[in-house]
Structures are given as C-alpha cells and as structure tokens.
C-alpha cells in the first residue's frame, strides 16, 4: 500500500527530476525498505527477459494488485499496494526503459 502511495507521490513531485524515471519513481522508492535494485531482481526472477520484465512492470503499474506483485507477501502486507499510475503511456514507457537500462544484468557480469 505504502509502495503504491509513494509511487503516486513520486509521480506528483517529479517536476524537478531529470528524467521520467527520476521524476516519477526514485523519490518515493527511497522511502521503501526494498531498493529499486532489489525490486528489479524480483522482476528478473519472475519474468527473465527484457520484454517480459518491462511488460510485467507496466501491467503492475497500470493494474496494481497483490496477486500479481513480484514482491513477497510480507513486503506487500507491510507497504501496501500502490495506486494506479496516472502517467501517460509515453512517460510510463520511458520510465520503465530507464529503469531497465539502469539495473539490467546484460553487460555487467565479468
């Protein structure tokens, strides 16, 4: 619940952020017990590929629900479910693309 509220707050206070991701996501997620990196790994664990991960995140942001959350029940029960995104399709895609680029595993292993 808290997570979703934070995301909404993030989206609301993102006017001063540098890009769609910074503007709409980072600020709120900083308040959460799980980092964006941890959440990203959760999505990877469930969805595997870029297309699937992006589609999974997008679907959750548009239709948030405990049943489809990649996070643990404990986390969801603690933080709650976020509110439905109010971002435009374009801005949502941009934010998710930036999120993927920032935390993806491709090219980071050595």
């Amino acid at each position, binding site marked *: 619940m808290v997570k979703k509220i934070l995301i909404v707050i993030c989206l609301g206070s993102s006017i001063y952020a540098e890009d769609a991701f910074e503007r709409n996501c980072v600020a709120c997620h900083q308040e959460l017990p799980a980092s964006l*990196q941890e959440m990203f*790994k959760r999505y*990877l*664990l*469930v*969805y*595997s*590929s*870029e*297309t*699937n*991960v992006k589609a999974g995140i997008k679907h959750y942001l548009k239709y948030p629900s405990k049943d489809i959350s990649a996070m643990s029940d404990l986390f969801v029960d603690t933080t709650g479910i976020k509110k439905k995104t109010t971002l435009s399709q374009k801005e949502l895609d941009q934010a998710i693309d930036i999120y993927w680029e920032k*935390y993806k*595993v*491709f090219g*980071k*292993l*050595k």
Partner: protein
Amino acid sequence: MLVSKSRATNSLLGSEKKSLLRFFALYVAMVTLLIIVISSYYYQTQEKLMLSNQRATLFKYAYIHAKRLKVLHHFFDERTDYPRDPRFKSAIYDIEHMPIFSILEEKNVRFDEEITMVGDHIHFLKSLDDFYLGTKYIIIEVEDDGLWRELIWKNIIGYGLFSFFFFMLFGLYLAKLFLKPMRDSIVLLDRFIKDTTHELNTPLSAILANIEMMDTEVMVEKNRTKLNRINIAAKTVSTLYKDLTYLTLEQEKENENEHIDVKALIEDRAEYFTILAQSKKLTYEFDLAPAMIFMDKRKFTRVIDNLISNAIKYNKRNGIVGFNLVQGELVIWDRGIGIKESKIPLIFDRYIRFNKSEGGFGVGLSIVKKIVDEYNIHIEVLSKVDEGTRMILKW
C-alpha cells in the same frame, strides 16, 4: 570409332558386358547406400549412448552452477564476477534465448535438445524454474575427447569394408547366375557348329576341286553360267567353313609367324573372291603399295578374307570394293549399305548380324577382332548408313 584391342573383351560379348556392367553399377550403388545408411544409424546410436553416459556428470555441473547463480543473484550488483569452474564452461540465457553471459567456446547453442554435440564440445541444457539474474537456461559445455568417435570410425571402416567385399563376392555369384542362361546358349551353339563343320570338309573339297578341274572352254554358255553359280555358292560355303573351322579347331594351334607380302596376299584373295564380286557386278579399286607384316599367314588370310567377303556381301549392285595399302596401314572399303553409328561397337560380337538377308553365322568379324587383338593390330571402323564402310587396320 576406334575399337579397343583389349584381349579381355573377347571373353565376354558386348551385350553380356553391358548387362554385367549395368547389374554391377546398380548392385554397387545399392550396397554402398545400404552400408552408408547402417553406418549412419550406428554412428548416431553410439553418439547418443556416449551422450547419455555424460548426462549424469553434466547434470551435476549444471546443478552446481545454478546454486552459484542463486548466490550471485542475491549479491548482484555488489558482486559481478560470473562463477567459473575449471571442469566446465558455461553460459546463461534468458527466456527469449538472449545470452546474458557466456564463456562457451562453441557459441552455437541449441535449445531444443537437452544434450548435444556441437563441434568438438558437448552442450548440456538445464532449464531453471527461478530465473536468477534473469536466467532461464544454463548451458554447460565440456570438451569431447573424441576417443569414442575414433572407435566408431574404426568399426565403421572395418565392418563396412568387410561387408562391402562380402557383398561384392555375393554379387559376383549373382552375376554368374544372371549370365548363365546367355552363356549356356552360346556354348550350345559353339558345340553344334564344331560338330557340323567337321562333316562339311570332305564334300566341300570335292565340289571345289571338281569345279577347278572342269574344262569350261568346251561348255556351252548356259552351262558355264550354271557352273559359275555353283562355284560362287561353293566358295561362299568354303569361306564360312574356314571361319567355323578356325573358330572351333584351328585357333588353338601354334602360330607359324612369317613375313607376309601383304600386297600379293590381297591380290590373291581379291582374285579368289572375283567370281563373288562379279555376281553383284562389283568392281575392285586397288591402290596398293608394297607392305609387309610378320604374322601367321593362315590368320592374316582369315582377316583379309572376312573383310573382303563383308565388303562384297554388304555392297550395292554395281558398287566398288576398294583396297588402299601402305606400309603399316590397310584400308578395305565399300560403297555399301553401311552400319548405324550405335551398332558399330557391337559388330565384333560373335553371332551378331545386322542384315538378316545375308547368309552367315555372324562369326567373321569376331574372328577378325580376335586375331588383330592377338597381334596388337588396331582396327578402326568408319561407317555411314547408305554411304559405305571403311575397315582400317594399323600395325
């Protein structure tokens, strides 16, 4: 058309050889195909057996690697060192087969089989339920020592060659069975000719001797013509008799080689056949230079007699029989009916006759071929239908 002078050709007729070659070509192709199919099946089975032997070890490696990925997933991105193991190489792929990280030597990866041979390496594919670092597929790669392949090739070559030779021997046996009826009919005909020719000698000699002794000067014209006809018929039979005798009795005799004056012999033999030539109103055309040949006169006479006899027999009325002789080359030609190009290779086969209206057994040219082969004389046949034939001997 240059006819090969291989003596081996005499042992088999052209038609026999052709049938035998066709049979053997088909048989060899079938046997080779069969061996290839069996070898390929054997190879694949052995490969599968080897891979299944490797499966347990590779599964263990994949399990270990999955555990390490789980740990790395947990600590990512503080730790980014991909887990390596000296026993194997590995790669991880996402659910869309995109490579996340790979240290494989063989980059060509198959996702449709659990265990496969890729070049000199074995690939084992493990599918994960939890996608650590996004990994759906782990590929484990180990090098193949190739020992199993060496053993398989040895077996394939060894057993393959053994089977091939076995089938070839079997094929020879089959070919013998296949040719037996043809061979039997030839042997039967040979035996018949041998038996009958023996009985022809005495009456034929008597006829010819008496014709020679008759005084034609005192005969009336009508009787002289009749005698001529008897003479022609007797000489035709005599030539045939000589061929058959040669074929059945004389060819085994020891050769009595001598230097023969070819020009004189041709003139003599042409003279002998004059009466036959006159019956078809043929004329001779001679262009003879002195020439010698060292061989058995009896055999050379058979060659010349047969060539002249054919030139007369297959000529047109009022035609020409020509003789061109230089040292080392004799051409006997006619302006007769000629032979089809496709039939030329078969004319030296025994019992082959192209014109059933003419008499004979079809043994003449078979004798010619046998003799010229024995003395390494080239024989060339140039012929065009309705234009004539040139028989060229080169020694």
